[in-house]
């Protein structure tokens, strides 16, 4: 067991949509704790609040109350510009429908996050090289100049994964990454995510597919905006944290 750092920590995370009588509590005091290098699945029926949770964890929206500390930084009350900056610096997304820019080459798609990085981590003249390296890492070295419509679903999702990785994020968030793929391509994508996990990436995947969840070390089940159960998956080789049980206030 090595010393770790906390990537995600939520404290009584609550999200309420609407106001007054018509308000809906999508998330109700959720406490989650994810360490660096973890591979975690979030599952739940529709309406369980998993999308809401994903949006907040992905810094696409902010909680109504409670705290979200991402990589040691409190991001609960940031404005739009600050959230965008956090997304650029710390996060990578993988979507169910890939969300690649149409009529744009794989290379340009992967370069996209670099364009918006205002910290200038990577100088402009290295962007292309960086994107190429990342595409090669996901096994698409020979498809760089292809546009999304010329690629298979699995290949498109690999491009999307490369795009998520290119900024060297502290957290990768995947929303039903295999939802649009056949089982074989889906399995390949999951193996790729496993590989990233093996290389030390921190991944949170939202899914309702038990096969996908089985790749992860731990599955957080949501129900009615609360954490229902946390399951340590059998196949995982990571340590179990006793803290997690206590965080799973139910």
């Amino acid at each position, binding site marked *: 067991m090595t010393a770790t750092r906390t990537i995600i920590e939520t404290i009584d995370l609550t999200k309420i949509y609407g106001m007054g009588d018509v308000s809906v509590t999508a998330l109700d005091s959720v406490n989650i704790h994810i360490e660096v290098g973890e591979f975690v699945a979030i599952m739940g029926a529709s309406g369980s609040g998993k999308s809401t949770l994903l949006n907040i964890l992905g810094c696409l929206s902010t909680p109504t109350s409670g705290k979200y500390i991402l990589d040691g930084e409190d991001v609960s009350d940031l404005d739009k510009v600050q959230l965008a900056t956090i997304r*650029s610096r710390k996060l990578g997304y993988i979507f169910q429908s890939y969300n690649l820019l*149409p009529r744009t080459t794989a290379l340009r798609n992967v370069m996209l*996050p670099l364009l918006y990085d205002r910290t200038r981590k990577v100088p402009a003249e290295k962007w292309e090289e960086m994107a190429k390296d990342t595409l090669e890492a996901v096994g698409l070295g020979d498809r760089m100049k292809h546009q999304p419509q010329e690629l298979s679903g699995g290949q498109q999702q690999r491009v999307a994964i490369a795009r998520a990785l290119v900024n060297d994020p502290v957290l990768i968030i995947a929303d039903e990454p295999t939802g649009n793929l056949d089982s074989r391509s889906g399995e390949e994508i999951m193996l790729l995510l496993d590989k990233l996990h093996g290389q030390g990436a921190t991944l949170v995947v939202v899914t309702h597919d038990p096969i996908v969840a089985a790749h992860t070390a731990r599955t957080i089940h949501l129900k009615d905006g609360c954490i229902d159960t946390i399951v340590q998956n059998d196949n995982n080789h990571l340590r179990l944290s006793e803290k997690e049980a206590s965080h799973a206030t139910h």
Partner: protein
Amino acid sequence: MRPIEVLRIAWEAIGKNKVRALLTMLGIIIGVAAVIIMIAVSAGTEATISDQITSLGTNLIFISSGFSRMGPGNASFSASSGGLVMVDSSGGLVYDDATAIADQVSGVKGVVVEQQATETIKAGNVTLDSIEIVGTSVDFPAVRDMKVKDGRYFTEEEITHKTKVAVLGYDLAQELFGDADPIGESILVSTTRLTVIGVMAERGTVGEVDYDARLYTPLSVVLQKFARTPFARIMGDRVRMIYVQIADSANMDNVILQIQLLLAKRHNVSLDSADFTITTQQDIIATQESTTAAFRSLLAWVAGVSLIVGGIGIMNIMLVSVTERTREIGVRQSVGATPGDVRWQFLTEALLMSLLGGLIGVVVGVGGAWVFGTVSAMRTVVVPSSILLAFGSAAVVGAFFGFYPANRAAQLDPIDALRHE
């Protein structure tokens, strides 16, 4: 985000929808081209008018009576320097006034009087109707800057003796005699026989006057034989207009004052209620210019409206584009684009489109003005500042109408944008 990347993305976005972009730009293209062409046409017209007025002769003063054709009552006393002056007298300028000016006013180079009649001319078996007969004085060719091509002009003596001689305009000579030499030939004007003594060099049509289709004869002959229009009958030996050419344009004010005093004395009127009007070439040019300037600004406004319409077209398409590309906006936001980045991207796209349209419009406008000037009789002068004006307006229009769609794109919520189908 680096400006070069913003530009590149905007350029690529336009490139992905070339036809649509071109159609969108059409409004701007037409607007810019219209501004340039319309200003070129009006500047050309202005230049033509100014040329015509100058080509009447140099350093002229027009003295006209109250019946002046030079504009209904707007002729004025003028003390501007240089150019033509016109004298017009309603109480009746008479031929003796012209003689008096020539004799008594210093600094005068020439005085010309014109009296016109319209008659039928016969020469051999050629008959021409409605030919303008111009009765004038000896200084006419010098003052009006015209040359005698063949033969000679008539003399002071011939005016005094009312000798029946004629000098033909170039085209008139051609029509009457063809290639034959008309000098010494006899022609019948109405019922009077005139001997042709000369042919004027070609001058062409200036203003609405075709100088080559006229017949020039001593003033005294016209007054005696042809002054038969009702107007002329009332006027007797009165003349409608006296042209005075001044030796030195620096003396213009002084000469005008001398003429005013002389004529006032001769007509026994005060300067406040003078029965004549003195106008200079400058006055006429200024009047014409103010007219064409008003015309020009009207055209510019009309063209400006089409630019605004073009801008609305851009706004419309940009709004459609923002809706269509909502998901793209969401993706960009998810990888770190701030509202400012998104706003810039769409604003740049609108601006690029209008500038591109402006550029094409400039090419079309300059080309169109050239074609217009070449194909039609209309003269066009492309005014460089109009290119700047048109192009600048296109840029302003693009920025103005691009702002609203860009702002809408910037305000999209990333979650909604990503979910957008």
